Each structure stands twice: as structure tokens, then as C-alpha cells.
């Protein structure tokens, strides 16, 4: 339930049920010096970060792919995990705290996980089912535990009140009836080793949610709500030594043992994130290799990408991969009900200029064909309605087509026509210095078709503003990546009125009702092949209705120093597998 720029979550790519993974998926990713020499234990891994903190450390609240890849590699263990290996195999689930990857029954409405013995918290307490039961309950305290994935809220079999809210309100404030209902939905076996989740519908890939910290063990007596975000208890090989504005230091957790962990290989003695660095300085440190054991946690600045990627001397210290985001501008259908106007806006955009501005196909990605990213391989197919493959798509903009559409709109919906050409459309955008350039580029592009646009620049609380229907403008810049390789985490989230990230407000559209019915059918479909076909059709249908203006399927770059070994792209997390990096001597 989050989106590109709010949370840099980078996400999952392949599905449990889809064993066929597109080779193109990892074709672009370089698996640099993964096996070039033998890993070595010791040393300090340094990560360079511009921001003065990570968004969240609390396992229940982390949602960005990078932070998940980081914390789950080192600090937090979850029920299941993605296998940290290069290539497609990286998307396979492996047991982590559990002994299996989950056993579904009752047509995937009931999921059981049995815990591995001998796992402990950093204070030596043995991890039991109750700890996980408690950890999973926290997401229901929606006022405190914000920002994490919220699937449990809608999937667990807990009655809802008249307003549609769960009767269970989390561990901090609750009613006996709520607690009883929760304990029924998430129950522990007598020996406290097996946890059972009872869902209100079939969810064939529920175990993928188990890779998120939202289902992870937490000791009730140490949970201080908000304060837990600053210093969560470790279950993995490292614990937090300190966490301040300057750095987050992870040191070895003596209660973690190799024998209880199937895949973690904690090479460095210490892992430290250096906060609050100048972005230019971060790049210079990597370029000049003055700190060989450092990796740029942010990725290089746009102006420095050529320096990193055109220099052969750096070829073992960089990678350039597709990221899982499909970017788009959502049309606020309530304010722009006229299909022709929305389509005209789509065609008037100068996609090429903006892609080039962001770094071109080399660094920025490719023209989007819909909202389902090619990385969700099973469910992806060019819609042939928008983007490459569509006969009307031109990278610089199809101005004759846009003008023709506006001509139709002039008589069909004169109010909307007037708004687009005279009053001007307002686009929500997050404050950024690149707006200095992209706004003029966009205004010039739209002006070619006679469309006027202005910008509503939002400094803070971007998504809490635009997700408020009263405050959202005509169009809203956004981006979305699948939570795991199933478009069930994309199409319903973006286009259903019950979805968590519907910026299109499309339920007023006459085409919506039929669309929602199809979503409901697709969600119930357990045959993955049939379901994939449905998602493809729905992506196409959404594109035809121009509920969003798809823009770019993104790309991301990583750069690091010569003193690091074993850096490779961890496909499902869209980031390096930080836990596999080792420090050369």
C-alpha cells in the first residue's frame, strides 16, 4: 500500500505459483563479482545515506524494499524469506523462523507455520508462537503502527463493525470481544510452536506476506508503541548498538546461531549506516574509492551516473537494474470525468523529453504500457492501448491525436474541454528541485495541444494530502510496485474502490461497476494461469479508460567501493542482497 516516492519500497517480482520466470527479468542485472573470490569474515560494512534516518526500523512498519532488504538481512527474522542468491532463484521462498514455507489448507483459507527450535531474541528469550501472534496483532493498532503492509487487516477472519472497521483494535487498546476474535483468527498450538492464520478468503500466496516484518516475533513487554521504532529487538545475526542522527550501528547478536538459520551468512563484524551525508559527497567517496568498504545506500545522483557507468575501471563496482515500479499520473476521474480529455492529456505528454531528462533508457527505464510492471512477469503483457505497442503512441507525444480528441470533447463535454484548455489542469507534485526543470518541459509539451497545466507543489505529507479526496487536484503524480509477484497487489490496490491506493477516484466512472466485478472474480481465482489472463485484461481495460496516465517503468542504480565482495542484485527486493556482502582485506 505504498508507492514510489513516499516509500522507496522496491518489491517482489516473481510468484509462488509462477514457476516460469521471464529470463528478461534478470537479463539487465549484472551479477558483479558474486563468486569472484572467497567470502571473508570480519571488517565493517558501511552504507552511505543522505537522509538523517531510515523511515522505520519497527518490523511492523517497514515497507520500502531497500529497508526490508537491509533489516531482514541483518536484524529481523520473519516466518519465511526470499532466498538471497543471484538470479531468478532469489525469488524463491525459503523458511526462516518457520521450518517450512507455510502449509495451506481449506482452499488456502487456513495457513499453518511451524517454528524452528532454538531461535532467540537478542536478550536470550526463546521465540515462541505467542511472540509472532503478538507481532502480527500490532498492525491492527492503526493509530500507532502506521505505514506497514496492511493486508492482515483485510484478510484475517475477524468480524467488522458497522463502519467496516475490524472489531479488533490492536494490542494497546482493545475489547475482550476483539481480543477473542483475533486469537481465533491467529492461534497458537498447545506447545506454542505452531501458528495458524484463519483468513476470510482464499489467498493462495499468503505466505509471501510472511516475508514482511508485519508477521514477526515481538515481545509484548518490550513493545512501547511508537518508541519501538527507534530500537527494535533483534532476532537476526546483528542487533542495534546505537541509532542516532549520525549513524545506525549494528553489531553481532550473540544469541543468534548459524544452526538455526538456513541462509544468513553474517560476514562483517559490524554494519553501519552513516546518515545525513551530502549526496555529492557520497558519490565522490565511491568514485574516488576513498572508503573502499562503503556502498551508496541511495544510488548515484543523476548528474554522476555517466561518471559511474561510462568508466570501465568501475565496472565491478556498479549495477543498473530495472526496478519494480510502474510510474503514472493518476487522473482524478471525479474532477476529469471526460474520457476524451483524459486521453488527450495522455497523448499530449512528451514522454521522450521526460525520460531523457531522467537519464534516458539507460538509467531511467522504459515507456510504461500500463500499471503492471514487466517484472511481474506472469501478469505482464503490453496493453497495446498505451505505450509502445499501441499504434497511437509516439514518444514525443501524438499531438494530432490529442487535438482530435479535444475536438470531440469540445462538443461532448464542453465543461471539461474548457477546464483543460482555458482554466488549466492542476497536477499534484511532491516538492523536489527537479520540478524546476520538469514543470517547464511539461507545460511546453501540453501547450502543443492547447492544454494548460499548473502544479500544486506539496512540501510535506504528500500522500496524506492527495489521498484526501477533498484535497486532491486534477492529476496526481505517483508510482506503484507489486508487493509480490501477483498483480493482485496492483490492480485492486490502484483501481478498486476498496483498494488501498486508489488515486483515480474512478468509482464514479460508468465503466467502473463492471470493472470491479471482474476484479472480484480475479481475486477469487486460484488457477494462477487464468488469474494472470484476467489481470492482463484488467490492465488493458484500465488503460482504455485512461484512469491513469502511465509514464515509466523505472530503473535503479547501485554503486559501491572496491573493498566489498559478493554484491549482487536480489531480484525480489529490487536491491542488493545486503546480507551477502563481505568486506575484503
Amino acid at each position: 500500500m505504498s508507492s514510489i516516492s513516499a516509500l522507496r519500497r522496491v518489491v517482489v517480482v516473481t510468484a509462488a505459483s509462477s514457476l516460469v520466470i521471464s529470463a528478461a527479468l534478470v537479463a539487465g542485472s549484472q551479477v558483479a563479482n558474486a563468486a569472484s573470490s572467497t567470502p571473508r569474515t570480519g571488517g565493517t560494512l558501511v552504507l552511505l545515506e543522505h537522509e538523517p534516518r531510515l523511515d522505520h526500523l519497527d518490523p511492523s512498519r517497514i515497507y520500502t524494499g531497500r529497508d526490508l532488504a537491509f533489516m531482514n538481512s541483518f536484524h529481523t527474522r520473519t516466518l519465511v524469506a526470499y532466498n538471497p542468491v543471484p538470479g531468478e532463484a532469489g525469488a524463491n521462498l525459503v523458511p526462516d523462523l518457520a521450518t517450512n514455507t507455510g502449509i495451506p489448507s481449506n482452499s488456502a483459507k487456513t495457513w499453518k507455520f511451524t517454528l524452528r527450535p532454538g531461535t532467540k531474541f537478542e536478550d536470550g528469550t526463546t521465540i515462541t508462537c505467542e511472540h509472532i501472534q503478538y507481532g502480527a496483532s500490532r498492525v491492527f493498532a492503526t493509530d500507532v503502527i502506521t505505514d506497514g503492509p496492511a493486508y492482515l487487516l483485510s484478510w484475517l477472519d475477524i468480524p467488522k463493525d458497522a463502519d467496516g472497521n475490524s472489531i479488533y483494535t490492536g494490542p494497546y487498546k482493545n475489547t475482550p470481544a476483539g481480543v477473542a476474535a483475533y486469537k481465533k483468527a491467529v492461534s497458537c498450538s498447545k506447545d506454542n510452536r505452531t501458528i495458524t492464520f484463519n483468513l476470510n478468503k482464499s489467498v493462495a500466496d499468503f505466505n509471501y506476506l510472511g516475508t514482511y516484518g508485519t508477521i514477526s516475533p515481538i515481545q509484548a513487554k518490550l513493545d512501547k508503541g511508537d518508541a519501538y521504532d527507534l530500537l527494535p529487538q533483534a532476532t537476526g545475526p546483528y542487533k542495534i548498538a546505537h541509532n542516532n542522527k549520525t549513524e545506525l550501528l549494528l553489531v553481532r547478536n550473540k544469541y543468534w546461531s548459524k544452526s538455526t538459520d538456513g541462509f544468513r551468512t553474517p560476514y562483517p563484524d559490524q554494519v553501519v549506516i552513516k546518515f545525513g551525508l551530502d549526496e555529492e559527497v557520497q558519490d565522490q567517496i565511491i568514485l574516488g574509492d576513498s572508503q573502499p568498504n562503503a556502498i551508496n545506500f541511495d544510488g548515484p545522483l543523476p548528474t554522476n551516473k555517466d561518471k559511474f557507468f561510462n568508466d570501465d575501471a568501475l565496472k565491478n563496482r556498479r549495477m543498473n537494474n530495472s526496478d519494480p515500479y510502474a510510474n503514472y499520473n493518476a487522473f482524478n476521474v471525479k474532477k476529469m470525468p471526460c474520457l476524451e480529455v483524459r486521453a488527450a492529456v495522455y497523448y499530449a505528454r512528451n514522454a521522450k523529453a521526460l525520460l531523457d531528462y531522467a537519464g534516458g533508457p539507460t538509467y531511467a527505464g522504459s515507456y510504461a504500457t500500463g500499471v503492471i510492471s514487466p517484472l511481474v512477469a506472469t501478469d505482464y503483457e503490453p496493453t497495446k492501448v498505451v505505450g509502445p505497442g499501441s499504434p497511437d503512441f509516439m514518444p514525443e507525444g501524438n499531438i494530432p491525436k490529442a487535438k482530435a480528441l479535444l475536438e470531440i470533447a469540445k462538443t461532448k463535454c464542453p465543461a471539461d474541454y474548457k477546464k483543460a484548455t482555458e482554466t488549466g489542469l492542476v497536477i499534484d507534485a511532491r516538492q523536489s528541485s527537479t520540478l524546476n526543470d520538469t514543470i517547464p518541459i511539461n507545460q511546453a509539451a501540453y501547450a502543443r495541444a492547447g492544454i494548460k497545466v499548473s502544479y500544486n507543489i506539496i512540501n510535506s505529507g504528500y500522500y496524506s494530502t492527495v489521498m484526501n479526496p477533498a484535497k486532491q487536484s486534477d492529476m496526481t503524480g505517483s508510482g506503484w510496485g507489486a508487493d509480490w509477484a501477483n498483480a493482485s497487489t496492483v490492480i485492486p490496490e490502484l483501481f478498486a474502490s476498496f483498494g488501498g491506493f486508489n488515486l483515480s477516484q474512478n468509482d464514479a466512472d460508468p465503466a467502473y461497476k463492471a470493472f470491479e466485478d471482474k476484479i472480484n472474480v480475479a481475486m477469487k481465482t486460484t488457477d494462477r494461469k487464468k488469474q494472470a489472463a484476467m489481470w492482463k485484461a484488467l490492465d488493458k481495460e484500465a488503460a482504455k479508460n485512461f484512469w491513469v496516465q502511465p509514464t515509466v517503468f523505472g530503473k535503479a542504480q547501485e554503486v559501491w567501493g572496491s573493498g566489498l565482495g559478493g554484491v549482487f542484485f536480489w531480484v525480489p527486493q529490487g536491491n542488493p542482497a545486503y546480507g551477502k556482502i563481505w568486506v575484503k582485506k
Partner: protein
Amino acid sequence: MTTTVETSRENDGSIQGRSPRQIAWMRFKRNKVGMTAAAVSIALLSLSLFAPIVCKLLGIDPDTLNLEVLNTSGIPDLPNGGISLEHPLGLIPGTGRDLLAQLLYGSRISFMVAILTTFTSLTIGLFVGIIGGYFRGRVDSTLGRFTDFLLAFPSFFMIVALSEPMVKRIESTGIAQGNSARILFLVFFLSFFGWPGFSRLIRSQVLSLRERDFVTAAEAMGARRSRVILKELLPNVWAPVIVVVSLSLPGYLAAEAVFSFLGLGVQPPASTWGILLSNASRYVTVMPSFFLITAGSLVIVVLAFNLVGDALRDALDPRADR
């Protein structure tokens, strides 16, 4: 600080009499640096004022994009950063717009903020200063305490902290929206923290003028207070005022640039020098000329105005040693 009157008396003689204005002007003319700076300042101001005409004459346009000449890093792929006859100062990376045209058009908002702010704070300063200096006593000490308090206030800090809530406030009242609201906010708060400087100066001026014979005479003849203030006092405080104005204008120009640079001032697509500088700082490692030209322009303007201010002070107040 009472030179104007004194000089006129000293020069009273058989030689042809000169007004204090003429004397000051003569002194100013002798100051070569001051004259040059004044010429530069006036030239820059008029370039900014007539930006559309100037740009038309030079055949440049601030909004034309030249995307096709940019490389993958957004840098103009031309010799000398695109500096040519067509584009005298080159092109801006990222969008390929003409830098000179952007600087000229951008300076208009910057100058507008600076001039409006100076005008507003001067008006308040004149009002408070004259009241305090004229009435003295309790009125003066109350006003004095207030101005001292404001002068000591961390004004820059306050403006930063207040920017978001106050801009929202202005927008919600419906007086202005978007950039107008931001300009209004800047002008209002820069003046709010700026007027005490003016008022303190004018007060001291008025305090001494009050003791002059011509004021006493006017009062003795039964002139109304308003007449004394408007006809006798106001015309005689202009000398120091001109100096302070010429010195504070560049200060406010730089202040506008700083706030836009921090992202709290005017927002794109409007262009100001602060926005250009924030752009320039993003590209500084790959295209330092953009930063150097933009920062250099700002420094030249501020320097020119400062020099004019210094020269004016020397001309109007020969005792002040500088």
C-alpha cells in the same frame, strides 16, 4: 547626522549659493567607483524592468526548451556550455533554456520582492521613527523597546519557521494563492523584521531635527503637529534614508534568493535567482559555469548596490568616515 542643514549654512556666502542636494551631487560625481556602480545598478535595474524588450532584441526567450542539445546527464552538448552568439551566457542544463533570458526574467521577481520589502519597511520605519522622535517620552520608550526587541530577534530563523504555516494561512484567507501568497509572505515578514532598523535611524534623525530653530519656529507660530511633521521634519530625513535604502535593497535581493534556494520562497515554474541557484548547485560538479555565472550575477548586483550606498553615504554625510 545633521549635515544637510549645517552644510547649507556653511556655504552661505558671497559665492553662489548651493542647495545641499547640489553639494551632495557634486561630491557623488567626484566618486568614480560610486558613479560606475550607480551606472551598473541603473543598467541592471532597467535590464530587468525591460527584460521582454531586451530579450526580443537579443533574440532570446526564457521559455524555449532546447532538449535536443542535452546529453544523458542533462548537460548541453555544445562547446563552452552552449555559450554562443545566440545564447550569450549559454544554456541551462536539464532543460536547455537560455541562461541570460532566465536571469533577466528571474531578476524581476527578485527585484520586485526587494523593492516592495524596502518600500514597506521604510514606510513603517518612517511612521514609527517620526512618532517616536517627535513625541518622545513614554511613546518613544515604548516604541523603542519594541523596536529593540524586534531588532534582536532571530528574524531569518523566524521566517523559515513560519513560512509554511503562514503561507497556508494567507492562501486560506483567499488574499493570494501560490506564488503570490509566497511573495506576499516574504515581503510581509521581511518588512516586519526589517522596519526597526529604519525606524531607529529616522528616530535619531528626528530627535535632533526637533531641536532645530526652524522646527521650534514653526511650532511657535502655532503650526499644527501634522504640518510640522509633514512639512518640516519629513523633507529633512531623506538623506540618511536614501543611504539605507540603497544598502538594504541588495540585502533583500539576497534574502529572496536564499529563501527560494531553500525551497521556501517562490516555486517553479516561476523563475527567480534563488531557483536558478538551486538548479545550478545541482549541476555544479558537471557544469560549474552555470553556478559561477548565476552566483556571479547575484554578487555583482549586490556589490554594485552596496557601492552606490557607500558612495551616497560619503556624499551626503562627509563626517561619516568610511
